[in-house]
């Protein structure tokens, strides 16, 4: 079965072709009849293959040579190992659930078949990304998911904000991808190959040329990993390239769940874990990864505490959780990072889908201040959402607790006390804003349009099923895979794919630390409950009291404004100058000038063209005689 790995991405691709060709004209409202089975079959095959991988088989499959140019050879090939398997299962399983959810959520949308084309295309690209056996094919998937993200953010293209958000995501990702690409160039010139197996074999056998000080006293492998990490910053929305992700919430909610929470944005974490043999040779990069991760985790969490758009809160929460994953990878606990990635995929997809159900019920309302009291009418949504929020907040024994606690534990035992403290502070805020989110949405009185209040309806079956499955997953996945911490199923399974974690520098009691983070989470939940359930007028008083801090958070630290003033608008002024000053006068002037020169020079010569056939024949003959004469007699 494992040699049929290509079937996993092939099914969604077939779905793309069928829906792309016939969706608009024939399938229309039946487009899901193609797209959902495509995702389902893909998941089924992935599951069968995963069983073989669990039994200990791995595969490095070369399908055929993709690019061959001298020494530069890149195959289309798949690497099936534990890491790829975890990612593949996450992507196909969550993807399948969200496909099912979309049947209900997107029902009646004029772009229904187009939506499923993009979703299947996304599945294909993401699977190529995680299953590739070389960096260039990974980059193909990397760009493919970027394209789908752009297309899906701007899915409702009549909306200016949506297309702007799509453009923003695309442009910000260009910055990261430029770094990624430079990293690939450097990797190729250094190692002469982009195949994972060969690169890592070289890194293991001959670390000296890679780790010797090179440019600027910094080793080549550090440069490579740094450049690759810039790509990860863009794709996984880390400081300072995170700005596109909150805006990406303009897309349909299933897209936010699948692409901007569960799968695509975790590609950076996957890439770092996949390259762990390289990253482990570059301690400075690892420090940077951990620092950026911890800073992002806290930074995004503070913003999430004051936002009032339901999806924006979850988006900032996603950025924050991605920060935790990078923190884990940065301190060498790659397995914990990937574990958090998998659990996060469950509860964050659940949160987004729950938010989608709420938005669906309220006919597009996304403002938290116009919600409230929805627990009674939307019973199923409320309880599943609560599970997701609790898992995200790190409540024992839900999924998020196991993975997040492990990351903090790893940060502490490797001696990164500062980063650990940042992470712990982030954990407090996470618990706080998750409680706030839940309370504002589902508790208290209904503050929205009374016209909507009368016919609120809970999620239809196609939307309820994914909610239930994901809620179940959010409850059990953490403990099932992650117990006991550091030695759970997932760690043992992943171990062969990843570089070994560094030796623990300090000793700490896992129980004590876990208790501490539980306590912090409890404090956050308590604070949230008090402020948003009990003393509901206090938050406003606090906002008024600390107005400056509140405004800063409300405007998301003015990062967008700073980027606009300092980067985007100078660039646009430069472009305008180049357009008018350089392109129009110099380039166009040169082209027009050549044409005018020729016209001036040719007004006499054109008389040669008499239009009389006889003259042409004689000229041709004379030319032939002269030419042949030169060839025969001239030499």
């Amino acid at each position, binding site marked *: 079965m494992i040699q049929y790995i290509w079937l996993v991405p092939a099914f969604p691709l077939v779905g793309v072709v069928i829906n792309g060709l016939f969706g608009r004209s024939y399938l229309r409202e039946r487009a899901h009849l193609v797209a959902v089975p495509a995702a389902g079959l893909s998941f089924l095959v992935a599951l069968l293959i995963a069983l073989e991988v669990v039994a200990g088989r791995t595969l490095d499959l070369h399908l055929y040579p993709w690019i061959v140019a001298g020494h530069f050879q890149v195959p289309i090939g798949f690497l099936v190992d534990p890491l790829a398997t975890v990612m593949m299962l996450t992507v196909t399983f969550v993807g399948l659930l969200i496909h099912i959810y979309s049947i209900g959520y997107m029902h009646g949308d004029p772009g229904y078949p187009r939506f499923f084309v993009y979703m299947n295309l996304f599945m294909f690209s993401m699977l190529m990304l995680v299953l590739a056996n070389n960096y260039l094919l990974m980059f193909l998937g990397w760009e493919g998911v970027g394209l789908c993200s752009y297309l899906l953010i701007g899915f409702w293209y009549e909306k200016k904000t949506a297309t702007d958000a799509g453009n923003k995501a695309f442009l910000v990702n260009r910055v990261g991808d430029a770094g990624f690409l430079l990293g690939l160039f450097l990797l190729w010139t250094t190692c002469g190959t982009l195949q994972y197996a060969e690169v890592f074999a070289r890194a293991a056998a001959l670390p000296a040329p890679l780790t010797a000080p090179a440019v600027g006293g910094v080793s080549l492998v550090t440069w490579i990993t740094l450049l690759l990490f810039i790509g990860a910053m863009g794709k996984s929305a880390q400081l300072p390239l995170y700005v596109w992700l909150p805006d990406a919430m303009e897309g349909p909610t299933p897209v936010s769940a699948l692409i901007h929470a569960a799968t695509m944005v975790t590609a950076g974490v996957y890439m770092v874990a996949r390259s762990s043999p390289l990253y482990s040779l570059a301690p400075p990069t690892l420090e940077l990864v951990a620092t950026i991760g911890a800073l992002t985790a806290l930074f995004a969490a503070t913003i999430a505490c004051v936002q009032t758009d339901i999806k924006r809160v979850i988006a900032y929460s996603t950025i924050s959780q991605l920060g935790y994953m990078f923190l884990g990878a940065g301190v060498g606990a790659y397995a914990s990072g990937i574990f958090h990635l998998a659990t996060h995929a469950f509860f964050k997809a659940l949160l987004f889908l729950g938010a989608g159900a709420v938005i669906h019920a309220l006919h597009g309302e996304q403002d938290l201040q116009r919600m409230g009291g929805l627990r009674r009418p939307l019973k199923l949504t409320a309880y599943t959402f609560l599970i997701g929020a609790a898992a995200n907040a790190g409540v024992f024994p839900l999924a998020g607790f196991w993975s997040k606690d492990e990351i903090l534990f790893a940060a502490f035992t490797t001696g990164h006390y500062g980063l650990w403290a940042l992470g712990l502070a982030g954990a407090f805020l996470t618990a706080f804003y998750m409680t706030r989110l839940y309370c504002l949405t589902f508790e208290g009185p209904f503050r929205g349009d009374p016209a909507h209040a009368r016919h609120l309806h809970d999620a239809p079956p196609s939307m309820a099923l994914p909610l239930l499955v994901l809620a179940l997953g959010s409850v059990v996945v953490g403990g099932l895979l992650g117990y006991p911490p550091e030695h759970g199923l997932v760690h043992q399974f992943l171990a062969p794919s990843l570089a070994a974690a560094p030796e623990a520098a300090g000793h700490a009691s896992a129980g004590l630390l876990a208790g501490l983070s539980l306590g912090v989470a409890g404090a956050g939940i308590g604070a949230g409950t008090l402020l948003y359930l009990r003393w509901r007028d206090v938050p406003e008083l606090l906002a008024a009291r600390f107005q400056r801090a509140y405004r800063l958070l409300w405007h998301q630290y003015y990062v967008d404004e700073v980027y606009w003033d300092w980067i985007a608008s100078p660039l646009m002024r430069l472009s305008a100058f180049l357009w008018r000053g350089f392109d129009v006068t110099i380039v166009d002037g040169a082209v027009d000038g050549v044409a005018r020169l020729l016209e001036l020079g040719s007004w006499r010569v054109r008389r*040669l*063209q*008499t*239009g*009389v*056939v*006889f003259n*042409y024949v004689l000229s041709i*003959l004379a030319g032939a005689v002269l030419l042949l004469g030169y060839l025969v007699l001239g030499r």
Partner: protein
Amino acid sequence: MVPLWAYLFLSAFLFAVGVVGVATRRNALVIFMSIELMLNAVNLSFVAFARFLHSLDGQVFVFFVMTVAAAEVAVGLAIIIAIFRNAETVNVDEVHLLKG
């Protein structure tokens, strides 16, 4: 056995007749036929050379020349029809599209 020069002489004569035809006639169709005659004159010398050099390359080339001739006739006649449709004539003296 007829010597090579006899064939070459005939080939040269046919070629020259073709040239004169192209140079002097005004009917586009006849000019075109003269071109065909020139091609055939060359074919004749190809075959003659092949025969006297004990080689088949010349004969193979005749095939290629025939292919080109067939393609040329198809396109050329289509052009003549198009010109006739626009100008109501096939007299090349009356067509001055290339005049600068």
